[in-house]
């Protein structure tokens, strides 16, 4: 109980953090345990890929928004071109984001991808093409999220800089104008 209290004091959104980690850990654990003990490839494949897909959705739509205030998606505009959109909370809200939350977010993202790569190497060594398929799917989902959020993050930083410059310029302008208004 005390541990839980300590945990929830440090993280601003403990439930979201929990779910963020839950599906990743479940997919990895399920894959490792079942491929060691159960010989049914179909079940392993379906459940692992399902958990990985759920994790992808949760990270992209829920924990990305709540833990780091970022979101990315793809759209097709009127001319039929594919456009990648990035969205972020504005500077103040971003600064208010809990540091621990975002630390957890990014590190679990990277660690999961690394874990899948290691598992992929194992199944390569054992020459199991089936399991390589599972690892391939899960890995591509993790990498998609990493790439999407990294781009979104860079975009957000650029926007914050631009906003800060503009805010500065506008305040200078408005104070100049009020100065001239007085004259």
């Amino acid at each position, binding site marked *: 109980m005390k541990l839980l209290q300590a945990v929830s004091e440090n993280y601003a959104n403990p439930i979201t953090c929990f779910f963020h980690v839950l599906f990743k850990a479940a997919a990895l654990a399920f894959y490792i345990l079942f491929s060691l003990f159960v010989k*049914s*490839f*179909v079940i392993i*494949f*379906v459940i692992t*890929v*399902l958990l990985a*897909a759920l994790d992808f*959705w949760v990270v992209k*739509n*829920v924990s990305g*928004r*709540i833990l780091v*205030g970022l*979101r990315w*998606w*793809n*759209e*097709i*505009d*009127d001319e*039929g*071109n*594919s456009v990648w*959109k*990035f*969205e*972020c*909370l*504005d*500077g*103040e*809200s971003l600064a*208010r984001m809990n540091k621990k939350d975002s630390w957890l977010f990014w590190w679990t993202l990277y660690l999961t991808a690394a874990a899948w790569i290691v598992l992929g190497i194992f199944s390569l060594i054992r020459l199991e*093409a*089936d399991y390589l*398929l599972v690892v391939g799917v899960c890995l591509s989902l993790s990498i998609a999220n990493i790439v999407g959020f990294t781009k979104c993050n860079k*975009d957000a930083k650029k*926007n914050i800089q*631009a*906003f800060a410059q*503009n*805010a500065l*310029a*506008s*305040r200078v*302008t*408005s104070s100049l*104008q009020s100065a001239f208004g007085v004259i």
Partner: protein
Amino acid sequence: MSHNHGDTIPLHPSSAQSDMDEIESLIHAAPSSATVLPARPPSPPRASIPISSSPAPAPVPSKPPLPAASIPISVSPVPPASASVSVPIGADGFGPPPNTLTEPVWDTVKRDLARIVSNLKLVVFPNPYREDPGKALRDWDLWGPFFFIVFLGLTLSWSASVKKSEVFAVAFAVLAAGAIVLTLNVLLLGGHIIFFQSLSLLGYCLFPLDVGALVCMLKNNVVLKIVVVTITLAWSSWAAYPFMSAAVNPRRKALALYPVFLMYISVGFLIIAID
């Protein structure tokens, strides 16, 4: 106007500014806020939203409104201090664009589910009065295709009496790789199609074959299987035809469509041959 979503983080930082300063800063911020705001361009009827909806650096993108789900959202977070500027936003009739960054999770789920259903209806139930096939799968998603491919693999694997795992792995790999290769085929023929849109489309067109595989799994009669598979195969190909043919040069239509047909035929054979 609700800021009553439990987890809404106030997006507008300007509570300290007077209205006049606010409007001034908005005017000065406007040129760059068009880039700061990755406003989401809505589908054609509401094309005015992105331009007029950049009142503040707070992103206020709009999503295409789904029948019931998002109308309540679309009435929601408009930053309080910019109420005077929000009039042009509301003028399009759909209300201020919803803010997807702070929406409740349940709304995201509902939105995605509604998108899957609408994509399914658009693609699989052919509509002879469809205006522009290319626009139909604008809101592509890969959940539908994922479920259909896995379901087809499971059904085939269940029907097989031996080598279940291999059947599943082969079915999944053939369908996934086949979709990717078919998309590349269209792109190499000089067609205009988005990679993910095409994957999504080919996945959704598997739905009739899923139904056929289910029926064949339940009744193991060869003649019935052939009939069912032929019907569902024709349905799948008919569903895929308008999109694929719209994407390429008319003279290359057959070149683009024939591999699609081939892939569905091979899946159909797989369904018939499994016992």
